[in-house]
């Protein structure tokens, strides 16, 4: 955990350092605001990193944001986090390949059947209802233009 926190702090230092390095080559107008923001960010992140390394971090943190669950064993947490990330990345990949209108029922079916272990009939019915709602709401009523996926474009559909 502590190692991860140090890496995150290092990430912030790297981001602010990159911003400062990039902005120095710009005109005064263009760099004024990014530099006035990135320089204090670099200073604060460095101070935080030093405090972390010295073990003098604040103890009153965590205010004003949600807490994640802590009663699940770490190895299960890791496995489930990786699992849900795979589903999210898979969803985006499906949208890229098939487009939203085809991905919607397919994703709902796959997730419900293979992740949530819903019966075949239940998963199929949910996918069909979702596809109907998606079509009615987003395509017929709100008229959102969904780009076709790469596969449809390739097949000329």
């Amino acid at each position, binding site marked *: 955990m502590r190692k991860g926190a140090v890496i995150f702090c290092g990430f912030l230092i790297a981001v602010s350092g990159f911003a400062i390095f990039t902005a120095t080559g*710009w005109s005064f107008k263009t760099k004024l605001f*990014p530099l006035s923001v990135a320089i204090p960010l670099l200073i604060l992140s460095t101070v935080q990193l030093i405090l972390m390394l010295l073990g003098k971090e604040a103890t009153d943190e965590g205010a004003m944001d949600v807490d994640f669950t802590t009663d699940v064993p770490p190895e299960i947490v890791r496995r489930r986090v990786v699992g849900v990330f795979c589903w*999210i990345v898979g969803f985006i990949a499906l949208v890229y390949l098939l487009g939203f209108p085809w991905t919607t029922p397919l994703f709902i079916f796959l997730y419900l059947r293979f992740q949530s272990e819903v019966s075949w009939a239940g998963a199929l019915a949910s996918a069909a209802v979702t596809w109907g709602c998606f079509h009615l709401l987003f395509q017929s009523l709100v008229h959102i233009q969904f780009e076709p996926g790469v596969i449809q474009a390739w097949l000329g559909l």
Partner: protein
Amino acid sequence: MFEAFIDGLLLVLQWKAFSLMLVGMALGFCVGLLPGIGGAATLALMIPFIFKMSPAEAFAFLLGMHSVAATTGDITSVLFGVPGEAISAATVVDGYPMAKKGEAGRALGAALMSSLLGALIGAFALALAIPIVRPLVLTFGSPELFMLGIIGISCITSLSGSSARGQIKGFAMGLLGLLVATIGQERQSGSLRFDMGLMYLWDGLDFVPVLVGIFAIPEIIDLAVRGTSIAGDRPPENLSAGVVEGVKDTFRHFWLVFRCSVVGVFVGILPGAGGGVAQWMAYAHAVQSAKDGTDRAGFGKGDVRGVLGPGAANNSKEGGELIPTVAFGVPGSGAMAILLSGFLIMGIMPGPDMLTKHLALTFSMVWTLAIANVITVILCLAILDQLAKLTYVRGGLIIPFVLLLVFVGSYTANGQIADLIVTLIFGVLSYFMVIFGWPRPPFVLGFVLGKVIETYLFISMTRYGFGWLTHPIVVGLIVLMAIVIAYPYVQQHRQRPREPVHA
């Protein structure tokens, strides 16, 4: 004046105007529930439909829709941790933890009732303020508006910890948000910044994909990790009793709701700030109103006051935004700019005429805001029991549908696959922020305010050099900012038990 007030009510109650208001409200209800499809975008979509309407009908339709979207946006924020509207993001911070504690009914009752009170206070402010607000708006130039943005960020960052070390993370996150907002074309010179050679980034990052990534993705991951329903394994709450408790909470903390509504009206009046700022300033005020550190510790973990403040401010700012739009033709937000085009389509020129010739029409807007919110809240309270039951459905059955809503919402920003990738990137960033204790609200506020703040800073520097720092109102605002930052230290110092004095 009183006659115009009653005439305004009668205009709204005409059957055609009233029916159109109900249609607008139904649309606003759906739009509010769907993440990403904002009230402003829907206003723009509906503008072509008003050509054949009378002015009173058109404004009943448009305002009915717009004001309701802000109210129902809180529902998904509480139930799934996914803001239905960009202006409902602050409700997630305490509303969703309440749902996780099995108090979804209470959170929804509080959110809706505070929204109603906020809307009524906003409508009342609109009715009262038009004659007196002109000097205030004219006093605030670019330097003052810049300082106001900085105070907004200071409010939220100063609450990230009660010691200097605790505040470092809050300020760093606020600055990171401001830095992310600089991505894309610089408005004054047109130069590209941090675009990584990607055309997608030329216009900067859209608010919706970033926001849903920041708030929704970590909550979805946490729900998957727990493997239970949103409310966990807790026994189902008595939903009706929870809703009633939430309504009671609103009146129990009436003065907090009132003050947050005033914050909403004030932010709404000022051009460019908008609901994204009002909700966080109200949230910060709710946290700062806590008596001591112990009282404050519950925020972020399901304190009902964290739901009441943003709920009230979100809706009161509607009335506030209408004040400069109606009185001077200066829109307070993107949505109001679209509404302004509605005025012009109707052949009405905002300005002094709205206070004389069209006074009844102006009051009809006040009545629309009030009536639309009363009807919505009554309807919502009637169906809350069913909505809150969703928090007891197994997470595995909810996740795919929430994921779908999240990504469709983010896709609506630009209609590109890159929107989904941005959502994922900020979702991952946000997940690590929560894991390592870096607060997200300052980041979001910095990101929302970044472009506005930079524009005001640029205008101030161009026009006054560094001389703007000596403007009396700016000096006053700097002092206010110092107080805001120092307040947690002072509060902590006061609580510290005194050393016994030995003779």
